[in-house]
């Protein structure tokens, strides 16, 4: 039974895409087939982490939404970049990425014309079926828009990424209220970019009481991640870093 996980944040800059990419790899390393879809159509970027360059990308999510290709044609096997060599014939682990277009015209077209969000749902389901996915991770656009709401509706699990910041705290309440009104199955929080010296236990208690929701991970403000500048996957380069260990907790919780 495959599981759909949406990763969302109310505001930009929370590190959501990095969390999504590294969490996807962490889950895959546990022996799963993982698909990642970049539905942040207005400001795509997760493909960079997987070294998926423009010259390799012939189709993307936008093409599917315009009816120009099947969604699986826009999915790229990025297992090499994500995990490294997998023995021939082994169908697990695998990581697939469906990028959104980085072309200005394509982004403009989405903003101008919009698209049928129902198609996204069809695409997600088809992708799970065609690629035999165990997990589908949906990287969403920050804030509230139609594709975000749709991804929340269809999710088995919503992961809400926020920083220890009053604006994030307030905005995340909006997302949580919407998630509840959409009858989402499960919601968890990931607190990211926790500055050094902050009392983690106290923060966890505070956040859980504000939202009446479990905090799955407390991720430190990560200078190594900043220095990597999206050039590759953090969990591969720093397998024993606290950030990586915390993401493993999230992966364990999702794969239980």
């Amino acid at each position, binding site marked *: 039974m495959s599981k759909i996980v949406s990763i969302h944040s109310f505001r930009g800059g929370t590190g959501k895409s990095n969390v999504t990419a590294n969490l996807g790899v962490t889950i895959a390393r546990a022996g799963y087939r993982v698909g990642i879809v970049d539905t942040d159509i207005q400001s795509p970027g997760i493909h960079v982490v997987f070294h998926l360059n423009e010259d390799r990308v012939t189709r993307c999510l936008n093409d599917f939404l315009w009816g120009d290709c099947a969604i699986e044609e826009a999915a790229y096997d990025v297992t090499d970049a994500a995990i490294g060599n997998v023995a021939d014939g082994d169908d697990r682990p695998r990581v697939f990425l469906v990028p959104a277009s980085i072309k200005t015209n394509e982004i403009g077209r989405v903003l101008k014309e919009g698209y*049928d*969000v*129902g198609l*996204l*749902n*069809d695409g997600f*389901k088809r992708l799970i079926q065609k690629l035999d996915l165990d997990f589908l991770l949906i990287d969403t656009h920050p804030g509230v828009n*139609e594709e975000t*709401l*749709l991804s*929340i*509706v*269809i999710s088995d699990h919503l992961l809400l990424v926020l920083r220890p910041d009053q604006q994030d705290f307030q905005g995340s309440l909006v997302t949580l209220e*919407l998630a509840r*009104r*959409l*009858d989402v*199955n499960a919601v968890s929080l990931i607190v990211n970019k926790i500055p050094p010296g902050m009392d983690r236990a106290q923060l966890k208690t505070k956040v859980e009481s504000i939202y009446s929701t479990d905090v799955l991970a407390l991720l430190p403000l990560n200078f190594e991640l900043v220095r990597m500048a999206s050039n590759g996957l953090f969990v591969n380069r720093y397998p024993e870093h606290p950030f990586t260990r915390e993401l493993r907790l999230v992966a364990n919780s999702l794969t239980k």
Partner: protein
Amino acid sequence: MSSSPNGTGDSPSHLDALLTRMKSAASPLREVLREIHAKYASLDDGVVASYIPELAKANPAWFGISAVSVQGQSIDVGDSDQQFTIQSASKPFTFGLALEDHGREHVLSKIGVQPIGEAFNSITLDQVANRPFNPMINAGAIAAADLVHGKDYPERVTRMIEMFGRYCGRTVYVDNSVFTSERMTGHRNRAIGHLMLNFDMVSDQLDETLELYFKQCSLLVTCHDLAVMGATLANGGVNPVTGVRAIDAEYVKDLLSVMHTCGMYDYAGEWAYRIGIPAKSGVGGGIVAVIPGQGGIGTFSPKLDVKGNSVRGIKVFEELAQRFGLHVFEADDKKQSLVSQFSPPK
């Protein structure tokens, strides 16, 4: 007068509407409708209506399916936003307006509720009372149009169009090309009108009534609109999308009864047997159907069978009735809640 489907007296908020749309986008019914649409899109039987030149211009490939629940959730597949003229699918709704304007007894003195198994445009009246047999054939529909109140013709037209607007949840417009075409070629309807005038079944404002009837048939709708209209009847007369009451609850069963027994031209009996839900078709290619307490379904495909019903539309309803046990007499253990299919599984 307005009220909400949930009895709160408030129209659904923009946010509610958005959340509802998102749930619909992820609903299992959407997948079913897409599958059925794909299955019958290649069905090429039937011919596009050509009895008036404007209708013949329809693209035979157009095909849309829409479903709207009594909670206001909607699912649209295919050419669901393609406009076409409502034609005879308008008849139950004008009958409803006549009932509201005059009450059941008076309307029944002018229009019967008896299926006849003859063509929709037959020039025939009940030989005992000289009434049209039912409001779903042209004679009965013209008699119903005659009963629409108004101090003058413009007010009658306005009331009629506003009534359709309440059902659709938006302002509807007349396709003037089709209206002109209807008016120029409507000699048979004039003959029916004059026959009824001869028996005092319609008033002496016949010319205006015929104009009103031609306009009624020429209203532009989509199959999404038809589904909302059906859902309004399924919801006791309250439009579940806008929360606005379109018809007194008292008369909803009158409309559903005649739709059930007479709604599908001379295929009505077989429809009731095979599909078994109240419905009305139009030669524009639309079918509006009602699943009481659950929702409305609208289909649009212009190619018609010999009886004037959309070929693909009938196939869609046959399939839906079978899959979900929609038939009114279906055994309880085979009936499924269509409403539950509108929301993503949890």
